[in-house]
């Protein structure tokens, strides 16, 4: 946070013609102008109008100010309340397994061998694909009639299941697909962190007679702690945004069992054209994401000061 006193760079302080800006500053503003034009119009402005629209009954034809009526309605909207619960369940039960499987995968493919580098490519690939393709593949696997899972169960003499059509199983199925798709991402991030540990540390521990598991607990886990905060926040936010999978695999059903906040936003806005009401939902989503971000920044800052106190 160092701030130079004005005029500390006399060489750069050539006066522009009358505008009162240096030549450098003018160049900088011209360079950032194209991006900021798009950014202002298509990111910041919509964020602002989201709040104002949430106070109206906008439906693309009319628009009247109705105060906080939309927010009051949210509290008694059963589908919306269900969607908030579902989204929290989806996020909580996705993030844990994702962090675990990603970490174990990172340990398994850590190394310079051929198998390890091929393993990395294979495991990251599901993350690279579109959620649409992934949903389509799993839609087939889960299909009660001709899907592979039920055929597999039948070949062991076990009864099949209705999977996505089962009110109790549908949400866990979506969570499974999410974990399958994104574990490779967690693996990549963890891998980068644990490869930044100097090999001499492992060497020294080995000389001292520390076994593999003991080295994982005392060297590797502390090494990935900082990125774990990052992952926790990123993954939670990703989960709170989940829409494509829900829209394609279940469309929120059966009977709201898998509807999420973003799915409700989509349905109210683009099936019912209740844009004002959907905007109020968006504001709620925004506040949740904002909270996660702030908590994460705080926790990250806490971590940093811990490290300073430890004197490292």
């Amino acid at each position, binding site marked *: 946070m160092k701030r130079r006193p004005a005029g500390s*760079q006399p060489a750069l302080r050539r006066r522009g013609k009358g505008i009162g*800006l*240096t030549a*450098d*500053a003018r*160049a*900088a*503003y011209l*360079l*950032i102008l*194209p*991006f900021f034009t798009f*950014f202002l*119009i*298509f*990111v*910041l*402005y*919509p*964020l602002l*109008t*989201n709040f104002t*629209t949430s106070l109206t009954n906008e439906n693309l034809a009319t628009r009247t100010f109705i105060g906080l009526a939309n927010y009051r309605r949210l509290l008694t909207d059963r589908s919306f309340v269900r969607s908030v619960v579902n989204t929290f369940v989806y996020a909580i039960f996705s993030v844990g397994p994702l962090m675990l499987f990603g970490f174990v995968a990172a340990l*398994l*493919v850590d190394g310079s061998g051929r198998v390890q580098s091929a*393993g990395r490519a*294979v495991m*990251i*690939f599901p993350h*690279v*694909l*579109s*959620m*649409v393709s992934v949903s*389509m*593949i799993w839609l*087939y*696997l889960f299909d009660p009639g*001709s899907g592979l899972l039920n*055929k597999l169960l039948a*070949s062991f003499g076990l009864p099949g299941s209705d999977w996505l059509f089962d009110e109790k199983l549908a949400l866990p199925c979506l969570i499974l697909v999410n974990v*399958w798709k994104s574990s490779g991402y967690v693996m*990549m991030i963890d891998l*980068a962190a644990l490869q930044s540990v100097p090999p001499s540390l492992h060497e020294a521990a080995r000389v001292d007679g520390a076994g593999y598991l003991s080295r994982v607990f005392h060297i590797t886990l502390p090494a990935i702690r900082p990125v774990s905060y*990052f*992952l926790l926040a*990123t993954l939670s*936010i990703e989960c709170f*945004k989940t829409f*494509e999978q829900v*829209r*394609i695999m279940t469309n929120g059903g059966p009977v709201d069992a898998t509807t999420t906040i973003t799915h409700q*936003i*989509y349905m109210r*806005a683009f099936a019912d054209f209740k*844009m004002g009401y959907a905007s109020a939902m*968006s504001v709620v*989503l925004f506040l949740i994401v*904002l909270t996660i*971000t702030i908590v994460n920044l705080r926790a990250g800052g806490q971590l940093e000061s811990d490290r300073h106190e430890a004197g490292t």
Partner: protein
Amino acid sequence: MKQLAKISGSLLLLVFLLAAIFPFLVMLSVSLQDMNQIYTPGLSLIPRPPRPEVYRIALSHGNWPRYLANSFYVAGMATAISLIINAMTGYAFARIRFPLRRLLFVLILAGMMIPAQVTLVPLFILIRHFPLAGGNNLLGQGGTGLVDTYTGLILPYIAGSFGVFMCRQFYVLFPKELDEAAKIDGCSRFRAFWLIYLPLSKPVLGALAVLKFTGAWNEYTWPLVMTNTGADRITTVQLALTAFRNEGEIFWNQLMAATLVSTAVILVVFLSMQRAFVQGLLVGSVKE
């Protein structure tokens, strides 16, 4: 004991790899089966007989050459424009001191944290009421604005601020002497950017290009609300895939064939630029 640990590690790796790859094998297998085999109970992963013509039938479902061209055009344009404006902006933030720089950069960081889903509805209203487009008047009334146009599809993709952050982090590592030397040679900031920085930007722009292209190619939500259903004009691949599901009976073989074609493009990009891709993923996770 050591031997045992090694073997159990290898076994675990094998389980992970199988879990990752098995669904793809199923996709490939089903895409070559005929519907009779798919409806037959009992596990049979080998297509008997293999039906390569499923691909031809699947791709003549609707207008697939058009969908592929649309996706290439939209993802390509979004990537090209993003690369230029993000590099320019990132360079300015990394190398030039100017008033309000800190505040504007905080805005960019904040922009990275705004989920697209939050602005979906207001963005749609904005695009629909865009002044003087699609039959709209100056106040944005009367027509459909930029809905159902390539422009409406592409614009939000190039407004994301992640690429600016990425470029800024890259350019900030260049030595100070570079700017001083350029200055002594009478090189303006624009020339320095164009002649010195841009030619050295291959690593960051490669990573950003892969991220932007796959992101735009894979996008589903925005095309879904932007596209007038029924008209194929701007329908992208991801949207076209969902058409197989919207009919009464799902022809799994055709759906898997089309899915495989749409993922093949990403597979090629991924395999040819794997390093760049992984670098892009890591930006932001490691604090400098």
